[in-house]
C-alpha cells in the first residue's frame, strides 16, 4: 500500500474542474485509491467517486491524505500528486 499527503494550492480547492481532473487521474490506474480531507479529519471516500470527493469539501490550503492499493499504486499516487502540485495545469 502506498500513501501520500499533499496540500491543495488550487484557488477553488477540489471543486468543479479540478475535482473532475482529480477523479479522472484516480480512475486512470487499476489500483484502489481512497482519499480523505486531513484538515477537517473527514471520513475516507473512494477517490474514483466524484460525489465522494465533492463531499470532502476540500478548500484551498487544505491537506488531503491518499492511500492506493494495487498493481500500479505508486504510479497512480505520483500522478495525482503531480496534478495537485502543478495546480491542475495538466
Amino acid at each position, binding site marked *: 500500500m502506498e500513501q501520500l499527503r499533499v496540500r491543495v494550492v488550487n484557488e477553488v480547492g477540489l471543486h*468543479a*474542474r479540478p475535482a473532475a481532473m482529480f477523479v479522472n487521474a484516480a480512475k486512470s490506474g487499476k489500483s484502489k485509491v481512497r482519499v480523505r480531507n486531513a484538515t477537517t479529519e473527514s471520513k475516507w471516500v473512494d477517490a474514483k*467517486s*466524484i*460525489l*465522494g470527493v*465533492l*463531499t470532502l*469539501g476540500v478548500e484551498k490550503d487544505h491537506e488531503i491524505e491518499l492511500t492506493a492499493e494495487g498493481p500500479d499504486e505508486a504510479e497512480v499516487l505520483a500522478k495525482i500528486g503531480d496534478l495537485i502540485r502543478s495546480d491542475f495545469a495538466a
Partner: protein
Amino acid sequence: MLKLKGIPASSGMAAGPAFTYAQQEVKPERRVVADPAAEWRRLEAALEAARGQLAAIQAKAQAETSEAEAAIFEAHAMFLDDPALLEMVQTAIDEQHLNTEAAWWDGIGSYAAEMEGMTDEYLRARAADIRDVGQRVLRLLAGQAEGDLAALGQPAIVVARDLTPSDTVRLDKKLVLGFCTAEGGPTSHTAILAKALALPAVVGLGADLLKVPGDALLLLDGDRGELIVDPDDTTREDFSVRSGRAAHQAEIELAAAHEPAITVDGRRLEVVANIGNPEDAATALRYGAEGVGLFRTEFLYLDRQTAPDEEEQVTAYNAALDVMGERPVVVRTLDVGGDKQLPYLDLGREDNPFLGWRAIRMCLDKPDFFKIQLRALLRASPGHDLRIMFPMIATVDEVQRARSLLDAARREVIAAGHPVAGRIQTGIMVEIPAAAVLADRFVPVVDFFSIGTNDLTQYTLAAERTNPKVAHLGDPCHPAVLRQIQRVIEAAHRGGIWVGVCGEMAGDPEAAPVLLGLGLDEFSMAPGSIPRVKVILRGWSFADAARLAAQAVDLDSADEARALVRSWAK
C-alpha cells in the same frame, strides 16, 4: 379535437407536432421486485441513454458558449458513472429487492442531502446538479425522454408549464415552430423569446395544456391566442388558408420594412429593436430596425458558474455593435434580482424580488462588480453610437451615483491605454412610477428616457406580470399608465431630450398610435413586430394621433382605450 384559449404573446401561426417539456419532478414509486437483475439492466439502459443526452448537450454548450460551461455537463456525466453511487444503488436493488427508480432516487437523495449540509456555497449549489442528473435518469426510466429541450429532434411546437431563460438557453431554436405555455403572461420570458425569434406564442393556456400527448398535432394561432389539439380536416384546411393569408400580409409588410416610418403629415419616428444577445442584431436589421433601443445584457450572466470577465463582455458588445455600425445601440446594464439565482453573486432569496434588491440597486452596492460591465461597454464604444441605460431607477441620487461610477470606469479604461468614444449618451429606464412622476427632476442628469412599460404597468397597477390571475390588470393601455407616459414625454421635450418606449407596448399595433399621439420619439420592440408597426405609423397623421391620445388619457380603463383606437382605425 380540443380547443384551448390563452393570451396571445407573439404573432404568427404554426402547425406541427407537440414537444412536451416536462418540468414536473418525477416522484418514483417504491416497491419490492422479484427480479433484481432485470432492475439493474433497466438502470444500465437508462444511464446509457442519459450519457448520450449529456454528451449532446455538452457538445452544444462547447460550440455555443464556452469550454468552462461545457465542463459542468462533463461533471453531470461523471455523476452517472460514480462508483460509490452505483454501489449504493446496486446494494439496495440486490439486498432489499427495491425497484430501480426508488433505489436510484435514494442514492441521489443521500448525496444531495450531504451537499446541502455543507458550509461551502459552491458545494451547496451542486446538490441541485445532482438532483438534476437524478431526474434525467428518472424521466428516462419513466419513458419521458422528450423532457429535455435540447433533445428536440424535429421541428415542433414546444409545450411547457412556463419557460425560464435557463430552460431555453440550450434549445435548438431552428427546430422550434412556436411556443405554448400553461402559465405566464404576455411579458413572460416565453413571450419575449418568441418575439425575438419571430415565432408564434400563446401563454396562459391553463393546466389542461399539460395533458396534451407528446405526439399530438397542434395548430397554434399567436394572434387569436388559440391552440387546437388534434384538429379535424375542416379545421386544418381553414387554418392553412388563414395562415397562408397571414404569411402573405407579413410578406407585404416586410417588403416595406426598410423604409422609414413617416406619418402622413411628415413626422418621422425612430423604429428600433429590442435584442437579448448579439445574434439578435442581424435579425433586427433584417426586419428593418434602425438601431437597437434595448440591448439586454443578462445573456452574459445567466446559466453559468462564474461571472463574465471584462474581455468576454467587450467581445460580446462588439459583436452586436459591429452589426449595427453607426446606428444607435442602447445597452441596458445588468438587470437581475432575487427571481434569478446566479451562483457567483449572492442575490439571496426574496419574498418580492420585483420590489427588492435588483438591477441598479444591487449594482450600486457592488461597485467593483458593476464597473467590470461599465469598463467593457466603454472599451466597446469607439466608432459606434453606444448609449448606456440604467434600469430600475427610482431616485435622482441613484443616477448620480451610477454616473460617477461610469466616470471612474472611464478614467480606468483610459489609464489602461484603451480608446473610448468621446460622447456617450447616458439615460435611464423609466419603469418605476416614482421616476415617471418626477421625470422633470431627472431631465438635468440624463440624455434620454426609455420607458419600460412592462414594469411601469406592473408597478402602477400592482399586478405581478407573471401571475396569470392578475394578468388582465396588466395592460399598458390603462389610462394611469398612459398619463405617466404623457408626463414623461412632456418633461423630456421641455428639457430637450428624447424619449423611447422599450416595453412590449411599442410593438403593440393598438398601442402604437396612442404612443405616437403622446409625442413619443423612439419605438423599440421585438424585431418581428417592426414591419407591422411601421405600416401602422405610416397610416396615421400625427395630428389625428394627438387627438386620439388626448381622448385616451381621459378614459377609465385599458379596454376603453383599446376600443377607442379600434374605432379611430376604422
